């Protein structure tokens, strides 16, 4: 009887151990259960404020239009720089994030070159000064006075119109971008992207 009882105990203990091992995490994921990764390219309609899909949509549309513009095709790999995109809306929008994405898409095409813009100019001059400080071999350091001036600059604005009626809120965004010849001041290309977002706050 004692033998049977001790055998049963061993069997139960072994079974419990196997069950617990089965419950252990089999995936390389340490999670609290409250956080999960989503799709960065998904359409976001959480609120009617400026969102990731608006940024992606504007950047896609503007870069496609720019790459097809005759002005950028006239010369092989023209040099472009990015100037300000002014925010004329009532909300905070990081317009540099939009132009950074436009620049990345255009650089990927290999058809256009970009010069450092105003915000990165300090880093550029700091690096040149450092290389010409006397600490580097003259033959291995970059020379002062060799920077190239951009042929064109890109600048624009984003504006919005917000309207409310009963439970409906309508937000209309208009993003305008221009390509300007730096020497002549001629606007060689311009395009706009319009977005409308409507939200309904009805309880039923």
């Amino acid at each position: 009887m004692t033998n049977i009882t001790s055998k049963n105990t061993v069997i139960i203990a072994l079974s419990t151990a196997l069950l617990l091992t089965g419950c252990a995490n089999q995936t390389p994921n340490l999670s609290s259960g409250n956080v999960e990764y989503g799709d960065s390219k998904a359409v976001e309609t959480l609120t009617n404020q400026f969102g990731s899909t608006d940024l992606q949509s504007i950047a896609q549309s503007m870069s496609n239009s720019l790459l097809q513009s005759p002005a950028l095709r006239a010369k092989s790999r023209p040099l472009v720089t990015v100037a300000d995109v002014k925010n004329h809306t009532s909300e905070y929008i990081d317009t540099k994030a939009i132009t950074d994405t436009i620049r990345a898409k255009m650089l990927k095409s290999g058809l256009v070159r970009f010069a450092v813009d105003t915000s990165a100019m300090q880093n550029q001059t700091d690096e040149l000064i450092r290389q010409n400080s006397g600490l580097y071999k003259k033959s291995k350091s970059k020379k002062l006075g060799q920077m190239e001036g951009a042929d064109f600059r890109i600048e624009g604005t984003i504006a919005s119109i917000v309207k409310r009626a009963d439970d409906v809120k309508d937000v209309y965004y208009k993003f305008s971008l221009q390509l300007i010849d730096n020497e002549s001041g001629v606007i060689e290309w311009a395009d706009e992207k319009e977005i409308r977002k409507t939200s309904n706050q009805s309880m039923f």
Partner: protein
Amino acid sequence: MNLTDVKRKINPMNWVLFASLFLTLNACSTIPSVPNPNSIPAKVEQLGEMSYLHVSHIAAQKRKQLLFVQAEISNSDSDNQQLFYRFKWLDANGFVIDNDEAWQPLLVYAGQQQTINGLAPTPQATDFRILVSSPDNTGNP
């Protein structure tokens, strides 16, 4: 001669052969045919069968080194439909160059035909796929 006599005369092995032939022919009829690589079904990847939206026309052209694609979306419903779409670009060897485009939303009015455009990100792109999804897909829960 009655039916029983007929059944006795026919060799039982023949029944097995007939049954096997029938099953084989049936299986052959369910093998999906490979779409023509230049047809619309070969270029469109649906995330679930779209109930009301259809890609009715696709045109592609190289415009100064970059592949430009235009597709027409038709709405056969009497209600407005929402479409999400994006382009996937492939090189001459079938490798995916860019599968990084964001999903674009598009409202298609009842009975409307809307046009969507895509421009390849690099001159290396020679082929494309249009990925489409609609909230009214039959595959949605």
